[in-house]
């Protein structure tokens, strides 16, 4: 089965942004192709066009030299193009089998038979009769893949598939993808992770600002060359100095922290104990959904569990709310920039004012002191190189990277003693990630402490002094960063044990 897929001069323009600008690419079966680019480079738009979700303004798609129309996802299915989206397209409350049967024309018995064959052939282990919300991210992805495989795809598109996977799950996925490729399925692999391109793919097309800037064989590329093509400039590489915190002052102590929830979507936390020294960064690794957001909310005071478990600079702060904790010089940068950290409909300066209640006298006699807030906001924008100086702009018009700089800036401008951040670079492009990483290393060097809860292992290894892993609400032992390897983290993140 030989498959050739060609896109020719595809353009898609959204108001204010050219997402795809005359894109032409060719793919052939038996190979794995990487589509590499930063956020907003236009990769997702291109694959949405290939899967029929979005219609191009101009251009054509050819499958085996025949022009095909992709006006709806059904057209893509008819042409045997399968797609695994970054944000899973599954129905959480339906069972796995119901999810699979929804777009299949087969009888239930026949479908079950062919699904079982796929499970056996690729060694997937999934219970078909439990609701999808009980599955791990890796299993959910397998359900998506099975859904494509049922239809004998010629082309399989994977959009950022490893962003939610553990190291081990990623390896398993790569094994499966290579197996599919050997069976003649053409695989297009979208990512911004350079390492994955080199270890998995045969050819790589780099996209930047809606255009294809290079197509090459991965053998001829290195991480640095790809990174520079992707960003379009040379990136500085920063490194953290290894320090000894033995004699430093202890700034935060968590003892016997427990959290129980009746909500099936939440994770219980079981007996957490750790402490943090002045100037130190503690990294907390783990696959999302293992208790990170509960832990973050307990540290920030959004959830109060008990009155004795959190000591900050020798003061008991367990029952304080987020505002009171900020007055003790703690600062927080939550995971979801849009819904937790900032109000997108509010202007930049209004978002800045939300945080600093007492100390900064933004409010006098119940009135808003606009002038003061705006001056303060301008300072944040320039100190943290947000690419605008217009404090009247609504926050929703900031890109993810700039919004995150604003949020971190808002937290850091009060010189807190401790910053707790949760996935601070999630979904950002390389330039913004670089900037945030530099900032986080800098605050440690100024003697401020930080807790970094992250699902990105490279980031954790780069920024942390000590690392532990959270799994099903329990913390692993805390290790110094020089004893940790990605493999060890992977094992712990999957619930295994080391030593």
């Amino acid at each position: 089965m030989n498959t050739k897929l060609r896109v020719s001069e595809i353009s898609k323009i959204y108001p204010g942004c050219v997402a795809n600008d005359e894109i032409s690419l060719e793919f052939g079966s038996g190979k794995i192709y990487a589509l590499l680019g930063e956020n907003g480079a236009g990769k997702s738009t291109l694959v949405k066009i290939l899967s029929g979700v979005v219609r191009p303004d101009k251009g054509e798609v050819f499958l085996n030299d025949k022009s095909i129309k992709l006006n709806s996802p059904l057209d893509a299915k008819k042409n045997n193009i399968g797609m695994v989206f970054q944000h899973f397209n599954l129905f959480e409350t339906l069972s796995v089998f119901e999810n699979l049967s929804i777009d299949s024309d087969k009888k239930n018995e026949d479908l079950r038979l062919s699904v079982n064959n796929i499970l056996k052939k690729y060694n997937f282990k999934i219970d078909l009769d439990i609701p999808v919300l009980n599955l791990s991210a890796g299993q959910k992805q397998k359900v998506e893949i099975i859904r494509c495989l049922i239809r004998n795809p010629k082309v399989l598109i994977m959009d950022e598939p490893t962003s939610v996977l553990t190291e081990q799950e990623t390896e398993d996925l790569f094994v499966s993808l290579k197996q599919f490729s050997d069976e003649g399925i053409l695989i297009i692999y979208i990512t911004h992770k350079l390492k994955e391109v080199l270890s998995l793919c045969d050819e790589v097309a780099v996209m930047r600002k809606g255009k294809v800037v290079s197509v090459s064989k991965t053998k001829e590329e290195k991480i640095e060359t790809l990174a520079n093509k992707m960003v379009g400039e040379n990136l500085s590489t920063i490194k953290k100095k290894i320090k000894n915190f033995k004699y430093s002052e202890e700034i935060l102590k968590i003892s016997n922290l427990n959290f129980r929830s009746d909500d099936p979507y939440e994770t219980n936390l079981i007996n957490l104990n750790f402490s943090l020294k002045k100037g130190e960064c503690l990294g907390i690794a783990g696959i999302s959904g293992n208790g990170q957001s509960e832990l973050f909310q307990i540290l920030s005071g959004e959830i109060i569990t008990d009155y004795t478990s959190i000591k900050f600079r020798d003061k008991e702060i367990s029952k304080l709310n987020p505002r009171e904790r900020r007055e003790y010089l703690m600062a927080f940068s939550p995971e979801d920039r849009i819904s937790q950290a900032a109000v997108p409909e509010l202007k930049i300066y209004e978002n800045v004012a939300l945080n600093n209640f007492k100390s900064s006298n933004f409010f006098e006699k119940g009135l808003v002191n606009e002038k003061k807030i705006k001056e303060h906001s301008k300072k944040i924008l320039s100190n943290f190189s947000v690419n605008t100086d217009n404090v009247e702009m609504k926050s929703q018009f900031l890109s993810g990277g700039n919004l995150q700089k604003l949020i971190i800036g808002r937290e850091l401008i009060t010189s807190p003693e401790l910053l707790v951040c949760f996935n601070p670079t999630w979904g950002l492009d390389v330039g913004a990630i670089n900037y945030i990483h530099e900032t986080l290393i800098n605050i440690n060097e100024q003697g401020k402490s930080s807790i970094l809860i992250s699902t990105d292992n490279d980031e954790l290894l780069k920024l942390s002094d000590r690392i532990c892993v959270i799994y099903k609400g329990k913390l692993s032992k805390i290790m110094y960063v020089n004893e940790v390897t990605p493999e060890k983290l992977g094992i712990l993140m999957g619930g295994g044990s080391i030593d």
Partner: protein
Amino acid sequence: MSFDLNFIGILIGAIMASSVPLILAASGELITERSGVLNLGVEGMMIIGAISGFALMVITDNLFLAVIGSMISGLIISIIFGVLTQSLLTNHVATGLALTIFGIGMSAMIGKNFVGIPGKEFPLLFVNLKENIPFLGPILFGHSVILYFAFLLPFLTNYFLKKTKIGLIIRAVGDSPTSASNQGINVSLVRYSCILYGGAMCGLAGAYLSLIYTPQWIENMTGGRGWIALALVVFATWSPIKVLIGALIFGGITILQLHMQAVGFRIPVQLLSALPYIMTIIVLVVISRDSRKIKLNTPTSLGQIFYKEK
């Protein structure tokens, strides 16, 4: 003794009759909500059904046409809601409230000329059996065809949602319209259909009131039953069978407290009148405690506006 037993049978028959409009409206709304659409216009659609059914009966003198007409008018008024929320992407809650206000006003206007006109007798089935079998007779027989349909409906709805492909698609759309759309399901079509079905069932519920239960037209005669039906759907955690149980409890306590008032129990009337509301909520909350099941039954996208990428 046989007299007492028969009396209880008649009482149960009356309870069943009083719960019919709730079962019909709630079953319809349940399907609508399962597709992720929150239509608060149930009361408005019911009362439009009530007046159109009654008006058609007076004009055509044909009960069959009246019943069908009430369903069609409920369906037509729900189209307004569908166009606004699905095509013009307005807020579900505000639009539903507007629909109810519109329905009540509209029905009062149309109904002006129909006040005081006596209704027509609606044919009841198996009347012989009702009178000849003590106790069970008045429970099982001597009802209108709509009542039998209403009591079958929750079971049909349950089967439809759980076992059929279309039911599965409706649940999928209610869970995640974006995923459904990316799977090639026409979300708009599914949601429109569910809205129209809900409208038709509410229309039928209204017709039951004005043609059978109290065969006449009185302004505002639904008397908040639409709101009760809405609450039943939520407290029954989107389970058709629990809707049936809830409707029977509500109907039952409504009738019983009337009897208690008549007999002269020394409990304040206000308290007795509030009893059906309180008891229904308590019972439904108690039988739907399983939070895992609630999660699985609740349409995740309920009330969310869905916008398709182009």
